[in-house]
């Protein structure tokens, strides 16, 4: 796996390979990858989230990229389906996103 990507793994074992830069939008993930010590997360570039379901984790990854696009001046709305709002907010709170 490339140095500048990370793999996020959902409760059901689905894998999302995203740019490290995108993952760093989350303060929690940033802390995992920048704290000193030889954590397996840092070494392998993989983080498992047993409490985050696949659709929510995918939405969060989409948000990371939307965030980067928005920061670079692109104006668009981020669409959230009403039925996932609560679960998404809990995950976002956990990830400090």
């Amino acid at each position, binding site marked *: 796996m490339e140095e500048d990507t990370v793999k996020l793994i959902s409760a059901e074992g*689905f894998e999302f390979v*995203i740019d490290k830069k995108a993952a760093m939008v989350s303060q929690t993930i940033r802390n995992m990858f920048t704290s000193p010590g030889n954590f397996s997360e840092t070494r392998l570039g993989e983080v498992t989230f047993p409490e985050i379901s696949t659709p929510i984790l995918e939405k969060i990854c989409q948000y990371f990229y939307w965030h980067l696009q928005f920061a670079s001046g692109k104006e668009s709305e981020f669409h959230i389906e009403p039925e996932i709002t609560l679960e998404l907010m809990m995950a976002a709170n956990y990830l400090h996103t």
Partner: protein
Amino acid sequence: MAMYIRVKRHKTTYFVTCDPTDTVLRIKQKLQSLIDEPANRQRLTLVSTDQILENSKTLAEQKVENDAIVALTLKTDDNGEFEDVCIARPEDFSSFS
């Protein structure tokens, strides 16, 4: 970053950043370093239209837009044919029910 696409195969999703003017071959070269399979063993299909993407054309020409889902299939070893599109759905792996 102009846009990204979601490349899916089995339980894995690769978020690939790209430009509308990138050729499909360029995308396959980016994938090459992530999945360890050369570009000529990859086939990309736009999921919304079921259209196989051509190497020499750009993403814009083939109506691949930001956040599009693209299926990745690989050449099988035995007869050189491409495998069928297979994208796993989280419902099939639900850990709580």
